[in-house]
């Protein structure tokens, strides 16, 4: 019943994201729940793939929506906030990378890995496309995932990442080349 109640509460009548974010900016908590229900899956998918399935995916998703709620008053009014949310997630991923880098300089990398499984075994358990994605840099991985999986235009990606559109094109080209090479190697 809860799934149906959730659906009814969030679905009738459908509002554009801009209206929901305006309600969030006015402190309406239920509106944040609606935004979360609407975009949780796509944000979670992106974060999971961008981090190659890190264990803190849920924390990153949580932080993304919390940040979105705090920034709701600055939303630019687009009908769909998906690109905006993904941009927030990218921003948090960068900070996470910097924090992890600082953390791992204090502890040795092998003891700091929180996985209880040998990373080599974990990698082997994945599909070839997941292994190929894990092999390219995070910047290229984010760009190609935003373009091919999340369906963002290059202009939207450039805005989300805060980089020139030419940089996006370069990263996409390099990502495709490296992925093809990695997949060809997997196939041998």
């Amino acid at each position: 019943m809860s799934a149906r109640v959730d659906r009814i509460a969030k679905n009738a009548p459908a509002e554009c994201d801009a209206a929901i974010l305006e309600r969030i900016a006015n402190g309406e908590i239920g509106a944040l729940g609606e935004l979360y229900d609407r975009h949780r899956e796509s944000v979670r998918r992106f974060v999971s793939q961008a981090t190659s399935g890190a264990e803190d995916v849920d924390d990153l998703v949580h932080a993304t929506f919390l940040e979105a709620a705090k920034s709701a008053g600055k939303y630019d009014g687009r009908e769909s906030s998906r690109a905006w949310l993904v941009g927030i997630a990218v921003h948090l991923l960068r900070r996470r990378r910097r924090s992890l880098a600082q953390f791992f300089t204090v502890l040795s990398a092998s003891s700091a890995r929180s996985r209880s499984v040998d990373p080599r075994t974990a990698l082997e358990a994945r599909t070839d496309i997941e292994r190929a994605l894990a092999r390219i840099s995070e910047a290229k991985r984010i760009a190609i995932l935003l373009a091919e999986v999340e369906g963002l235009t290059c202009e939207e990606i450039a805005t989300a990442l805060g980089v020139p559109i030419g940089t996006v094109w370069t990263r996409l080209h390099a990502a495709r080349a490296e992925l093809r090479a990695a997949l060809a190697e997997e196939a041998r």
Partner: protein
Amino acid sequence: MSKSRCPRSFEAEASRDGRLGADERASFEAHAEKCADCTKAIRELDALGARLRSAPVPRADDLQARRERTRLLSDFNRGLVEPRKKSRAQLFALVPIAALVVGIAFALHRVGRGVAADASVSPEPGTEWSSKVDGEHTVIELDRGTLAIVVSHGPGARPVVVHLPDGELEDTGTTFEVSVENGHTSRVSVDEGAVVLRLNGRQPVALAAGGAWNAPPPSFVAAPASATSSTVAPESTTKSADAGAAPATSTSPAIARATGSTSADEFNDATLALDRGDACDAAGRFGRFLAAHPSDAHEEDAAYLHVIALQRCGDAAATKEAARDYLARFPHGFRRSELEPLAR
């Protein structure tokens, strides 16, 4: 891309990434129709995109998704009530540290008395259970057997959640006992404090001190969690003298049919009204439902949807009153964090 002889094949990627103007794009598309190399380049790009979209992504189960949703709304609410600046860099520095703590704090108990971070656990012989710290919760996993649990609520103690094969049990301050048999929760009894029991496909049950919940006998088929269901398993609950428990009473199917329109029908009609956008009508229907069926299995959902309907109908005063009514009826309700701001 495989080596290509056509000098225009690079335009396949340029077109895909929006680098070509409208005329250039049209020109390339016309060319590609007659060029095997460029057609192949387009197909290779499409295939790579399809493979990326097919990469599996682990989905959070429904219970985990609901917990995350509740956590988000609670944190947002806390931020509204007690806004404070916090360095985001500090927040994110905690992520890898928390992950490391999870790894270090993980422990597997098979027999004997155990300590699960913020709870003292006494398992009966043969019980299979484990515990770990998961973010801001201490999670106890009970696979089989019976655990007696005393939860610590001192400063800094984390809330305790017991994961069951068919749901979860959230502690809200207390001493309780929970049993699992054949992959199903069979009994929960509370000595002190209160718990909320959430089992898949069932309404949440709040149990206070002295209360107990027993699973229905195996001959009954549990009803799917649907407003139109007319077969509800006769779970037995013992309501404690301490108010606050929301008893999961069942509606007798025989009596319901004898009176014509059932409470389930009325609840369903109200939700349909809300679903089609008729918020004011839905608000009236939910209000009448709650007055006529105060102990119905759909009571909590109806009380919550009543608030939503009133809000959408634009009646701020009634929304506030209904939200307060929900919080009074269900102090441990599933939607409390969402409705608390509406009650202020």
